[in-house]
């Protein structure tokens, strides 16, 4: 059932729910930029971006705190029901997952400083490819969120396997390369670190997909929801 066209009888309640949705959308936008910049730092070896990333990280953290406060306030004062209840409880999960994504992106960016101490490695391209898939996942799930559309959410949930496959094969290749050439162990550890962080961002995207599905339908996202192409 789509969201009601009626406004709340208590206007300020409706406004508080709208503010919550706006805040989540803004947080999603900032986190997406964080991930793009973090990958640029790694792939283009551009450290100049790190300062901005650190500042944005603080913004993201305070946004999460703000959203938590708003949710607690809504529960205490409004006792939201039905879709309002789902939107409110989901906001808590979304804010937490977005904050984690922001944190992992920041870690990736910081890691670029270690990586730049070594000459570029071929496997950095593979990181770029994994990063591209993860960014696509994040964008798609944020679209699902802003449009209350479960189809892109289900796709993201389904495509997490692709993220995992890329991650696993990248790790295998890296470990093989490290075992053949011990001078690759130090720089390779950085690649492993970045890959692991990207894979975990992918997992948070699937969490968000599940949250969106619940918010829209009231039901948990299950394997049965996956659409066969």
């Amino acid at each position: 059932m789509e969201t009601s066209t009626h406004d709340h009888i208590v206007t300020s309640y409706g406004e508080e729910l709208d503010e919550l949705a706006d805040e989540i959308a803004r947080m999603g936008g900032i986190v997406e930029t964080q991930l793009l910049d973090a990958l640029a730092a790694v792939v283009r070896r551009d450290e100049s971006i790190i300062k901005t990333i650190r500042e944005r990280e603080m913004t993201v953290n305070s946004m999460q705190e703000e959203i938590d406060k708003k949710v607690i306030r809504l529960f205490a004062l409004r006792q939201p029901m039905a879709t309002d209840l789902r939107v409110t409880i989901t906001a808590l999960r979304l804010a937490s997952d977005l904050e984690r994504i922001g944190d992992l992106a920041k870690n990736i960016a910081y890691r670029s400083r270690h990586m730049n101490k070594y000459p570029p490695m071929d496997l950095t391209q593979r990181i770029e490819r994994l990063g591209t898939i993860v960014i696509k996942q994040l964008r798609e799930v944020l679209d699902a969120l802003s449009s209350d559309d479960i189809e892109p959410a289900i796709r993201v949930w389904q495509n997490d396997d692709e993220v995992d496959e890329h991650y696993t094969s990248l790790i295998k290749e890296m470990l093989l390369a490290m075992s053949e050439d011990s001078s690759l162990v130090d720089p390779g550890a950085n690649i492993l670190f970045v890959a692991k962080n990207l894979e975990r961002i992918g997992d948070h995207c699937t969490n968000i997909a599940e949250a969106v599905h619940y918010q829209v339908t009231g039901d948990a996202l299950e394997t049965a929801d996956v659409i066969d192409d």
Partner: protein
Amino acid sequence: MTAVEAQPTVYHQEIDAENIKVAVKGVDVFYGDKQALFDVSLDIPDRGVTAFIGPSGCGKSTFLRCMNRMNDTIDGARVSGSLMIDGGEVNDPTIDPVVLRAGVGMVFQKPNPFPKSIYDNVAYGPRIHGLAATKDELDGIVEQSLRKAGLWAEVSDRLSDPGTGLSGGQQQRLVIARAIAVNPEVILMDEPCSALDPIATAKIEELIDELRENYCIIMVTHSMAQAARVSQMTAFFHLGHLVEYGPTEDIFTKPRERRTQDYITGRFG
């Protein structure tokens, strides 16, 4: 009344046949020319609380009053359709409403103890229905009923005091004890807590939660939080139609009908 396009009721699930206490099919109620209820059908389970919710004038109280033929007392009221309690037709003209009402107790918005002693309030029903042969038996029924209503500890030493001298919450529990005393099949409650403070309300809700293990309780409430807290099944009425009926948890987290959603989220416009 605004004409509303009749839409079929949304039912979330069927009640197990062996657990149906009240089976309602196609009930219409008219007050004179005005139709107050339109083709209401639903099955109410035994041993549980079913809440009727909806805006004022939606027909929920009218429907509750069908259960014990209280509409008979209103001039010009006509009820058609079938309403079976334990397989017996309530609207059967050969049924004596007085006997029916012993089996279908009712608790009202404002507590209405008789202007008699606490003891006599509870003993009244068993006496007129001849449920006790001796004074000892009657004493037993009174004590048991007051215990079940959670009032015994507060009144056992002053059973001959007038019932009307109790606090509002105690009076409401006295009225519930009075209803229980005649071993009802069904207990109807019409806004039982709307005249009570939050503590007295909590005590009644706790009592309802205990009683539901043994009785079929049907309750009309304007407090959606209360419906959510105490009931297991919820029926939403709007403009005389039963819009949606299902497990309380589903109705309050994922209603399927727009009108239900709008009402419980406070968007009615």
